[in-house]
């Protein structure tokens, strides 16, 4: 069982390839909430696919100005083909070399050589505010993410 980073911890910085010639780092996204969705591999069955679901819920995430990022150990070319086939409108990052290094930092790596199905909601200041580990065979859905984003928004409303 992985030892997932819990709420309250500063989210570890990383920079990974989103495409062969483009990288994304966590710090670039500071100023808005970030959803990190670690998943075992591209190409799970279509109708129950976690990334396909997030793709549909994207407008709701955007209402919270949140960025969603998928991360698996698949390489950039695999991600590119997968994103194209599923018509995905958010980045998939390749935790490819050294393999699974980012998943390990987040406590979301499995010894079998791929990442857990693990979700993190990081606030605009880069602090983990919610994390969730799903059984690897179970798509965790989007309800937990939406609840976490809503609680961040309520906090902001109180603060102002």
């Amino acid at each position, binding site marked *: 069982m992985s030892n997932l980073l819990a709420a309250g911890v500063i989210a570890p910085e990383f920079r990974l390839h989103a495409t062969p010639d483009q990288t994304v780092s966590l710090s670039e996204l500071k100023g808005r909430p970030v959803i990190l969705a670690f998943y075992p591999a591209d190409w799970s069955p279509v109708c129950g696919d976690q990334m*396909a*679901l997030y793709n*549909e*819920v994207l407008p*709701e995430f955007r209402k919270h100005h949140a960025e969603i990022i998928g991360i698996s150990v698949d390489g950039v070319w695999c991600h590119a083909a997968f994103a194209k086939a*599923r018509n995905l409108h958010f980045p998939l990052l390749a935790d490819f070399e050294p393999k699974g290094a980012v998943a390990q930092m987040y406590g979301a790596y499995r010894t079998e050589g791929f990442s857990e199905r693990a979700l993190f909601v990081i606030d605009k200041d880069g602090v983990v505010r919610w994390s969730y580990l799903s059984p690897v065979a*179970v*798509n965790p*859905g989007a309800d937990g993410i939406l609840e976490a984003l809503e609680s961040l928004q309520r906090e902001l409303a109180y603060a102002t």
Partner: protein
Amino acid sequence: MQLKVAIYEHDHLQGPEDATVTLVEYGDYQCPDCVRVHPTVKLLQRRFGASLRFAFRNFPLAQIHPFAEPAAEAAEFAAAHGQFWEMHDGIFERQSPLSSELLLNLAKKNGLDVDAMAEALKRRAFLDRVKQDFMGGVRSGVNGTPTFFVDGKRHDEGTDFETLAAGIEAVRSRLDVKLLQR
């Protein structure tokens, strides 16, 4: 996971209101697994008769299934004219791939105003209704299609007849015992 949206007046329902068990399906008309499970639902309804109420809610994965939303909207258009289940069954029991033409043919077959439906699909008049189902599903932890809830609890086991029937039977026998004890 619990169903967050209780049965309400806009639901498409089959079976008596006082049925012992309510089965809710979140489905996508273009999803092959939903097409496969359609006859299974029919068999469950036959098996449980008046003790089962069934509700179908829309969960189109539109980015991977380009006809899922139009199909759901066509079914909602039919619902507005009292023909939901005819359209629903027609779409799932189709013998050719989903297309606008197929939807319009089904409308014609069911005596609906084809031009009015074409217009409603073009204006996306029923999209909000479909999206409302979808978001309710997301809130309830629907993570793919088909997803079933048996008396408000997500059914995480298989969607074959035996497994679904066992899930329904478990709830029914529990509730029947409660009724006897009263």
